[in-house]
């Protein structure tokens, strides 16, 4: 494999890891606060649709982003209502959110755009432009070597949301581990009764966490339809919400590990897209194996054979105040 294709794979790794990273951090906030969320997929999907539709209608990518965040937050609110206020089953609510997004996007998309569920292709201004770093074009010319190549082909030339996603990692770490809000958020996922005793609203904290999840899933979806591709296609998230969930478990609910897990799963995706079957001489690794690898790795991690993944202790349970 030559340098150019190596750089190309790293480049698409970053692109493909971005929606995973947003969704994974989204899940991290929710689950750290004790609200399981298997509805990441649905929120991403509805956000991708709303973003593309609004961007097409107004011609502004930023209106699209806002619409995506809005739609995702609406779905997050449904999940919050079901799992926090009405103390319903959080897993079932997540399943419902996924189906709701899957059905609603097609129904609305088909009747609005008459294109069988997809939005018209987004042209310049309706989608994110790539940002080129200073000197990236000159550094990438000819024989730039590994460092120059990475600078100009891998790090430079992405849309703004890619850098936002990367910046969200230290930000999440800081919020969770260095702020009062983060401490309380983590506490509410481990021992909500203690937080309640301290006079802090469990409900309020959990809604705040679910709200952050909504915003981040909105960004994930917006990137899917306005960054990664130019427009919305039905079921375009294609299981990425579940991969993000897998990455979250793989990262054991910690932000920096989430970045690593998302990059790993993004790399697997990039490799699967580029190489199809990988011929190692002695055996051929089928593309389906590469595609299934994130799920297989997650099961192995869950099984606790390679370091046990322990979820937040109060996760999945609604908090009932003692009377």
């Amino acid at each position, binding site marked *: 494999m030559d340098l150019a294709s190596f750089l190309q794979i790293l480049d698409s790794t970053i692109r493909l890891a971005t929606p995973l990273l947003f969704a994974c951090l989204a899940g991290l906030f929710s689950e750290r606060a004790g609200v399981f969320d298997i509805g990441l997929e649905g929120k991403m999907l509805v956000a991708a649709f709303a973003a593309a539709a609004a961007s097409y209608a107004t011609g502004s990518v930023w209106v699209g982003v806002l619409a995506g965040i809005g739609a995702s937050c609406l779905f997050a609110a449904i999940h919050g209502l079901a799992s926090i206020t*009405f103390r319903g*089953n959080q897993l*079932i609510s997540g399943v*419902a959110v*996924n189906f709701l997004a899957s059905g609603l996007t097609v129904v609305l998309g088909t009747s609005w755009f008459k294109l069988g569920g997809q939005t018209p292709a987004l042209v310049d201004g309706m989608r994110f432009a790539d940002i080129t770093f200073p000197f990236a074009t000159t550094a990438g010319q000819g024989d730039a070597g590994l460092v120059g190549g990475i600078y100009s082909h891998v790090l430079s030339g992405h849309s703004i949301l890619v850098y936002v996603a990367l910046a969200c990692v230290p930000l999440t770490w800081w919020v969770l581990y260095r702020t009062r809000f983060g401490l309380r958020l983590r506490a509410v996922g481990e021992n909500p009764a203690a937080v309640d005793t301290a006079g802090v609203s469990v409900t309020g904290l959990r809604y705040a966490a679910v709200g952050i999840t909504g915003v981040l899933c909105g960004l994930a979806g917006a990137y899917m339809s306005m960054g990664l591709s130019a427009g919305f296609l039905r079921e375009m998230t294609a299981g990425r919400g579940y991969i993000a969930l897998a990455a979250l478990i793989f990262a054991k609910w910690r932000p920096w590990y989430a970045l690593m897990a998302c990059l790993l799963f993004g790399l697997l995706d990039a490799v699967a897209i580029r190489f199809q079957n990988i011929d190692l001489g002695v055996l051929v690794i089928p593309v389906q194996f590469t*595609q299934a690898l994130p799920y297989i790795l997650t099961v192995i991690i*869950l099984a606790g054979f390679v370091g046990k993944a322990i979820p937040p202790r109060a996760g999945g349970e609604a908090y009932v105040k003692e009377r």
Partner: protein
Amino acid sequence: MDKLPRWADVVLVPLICLIIAFVFCGILIAAIGQSPLQAIWIMIDGSFGSTNGLGYTLYYATNFIFTGLAVSIAFQASLFNIGGEGQATLGGLGVALSCLLIPWPHWSLALLGSLAAGAAFGAAWGFLPAWLQAKRGSHIVITTMMFNFIAYALMNYVLVNLLRPMGSMDPASARFDKAYNLPKLGDILGLVGIPFSSKNPANITFLIAIALAVGVWALLWHTRLGYALRAFGKQEKAALYAGIDPVKITIYALLLSGGISGLMAVNAVQGAAHRLVLNSVEGAGFIGIAVALMGRNHPFGIVIASILFGFLYEGGSQLAMGTTIPREVITVLQALVILFTGALPYMVQKPLEHLFAKFGGAK
């Protein structure tokens, strides 16, 4: 908690949830500029108006009875198996291998072979998540979900690389021997003099599904294992104290659940498609969740809920053919049913309890 009379809990709560879901969908249909009343009429006429439409309804219902029973058996043991999709996919592989590799002398023997292979493959796919849950504490919802994706990748590999006939571009197996085609429901009803169309895929598996529902009912409420399952689901600690082994029960529950999911393939793969295609389950594994919730986790409720969802499914196809309303309206309806019956039961139950306390106070 027993503020509601039993009939209200069993009939009224699901019915109200369903009505709310229908109203929401009606609003959605109106919002996209179509007539909700016309839509519901097209659905009813299409799925119940002719024996052919009814056959399609029952064909879909058969799938949902299997997946619904599968979800509910795990639910009874307080385990949420969302891996029905993957287990039914593997069941399809079992059925296809049985039909392709073994030269059965008669369709009835092929049917027995398919039932055994479908159940065995489905159960096998449920085994590992169950074992991981019981022994290693891995959350079964996540593992079964991961196994759905692994099943899909596996099926993709098997169909593209192993089962695809030479020269075919389609990721599907060869057609099964015509002699293995299952008797159509129309032919069976014809024997007893009931005229019923045979142009639809409804087949003998429908009767097997009904029998299985009775079997699951008997298993859950009239056997030692069923008692152990329910006790474990209701109060794990008490069950433990009563000498019920949690590892065994978890594994049994998922083997049963996976096996029943796998049986769905007998209907879809041997009964209808006559070959194995990539997405043979078509989401029925997930609809099983809605069906189990709607049917209040009871086999008879599940049969009724399955027929309802069969109607919705067939009605959705009719909508897509007869109007410009896409069939995904049904997905929305399904989502709302899951939301209201599964995640928001208190929203309906609490006001009802108030009503009953107010007006039914004499009891």
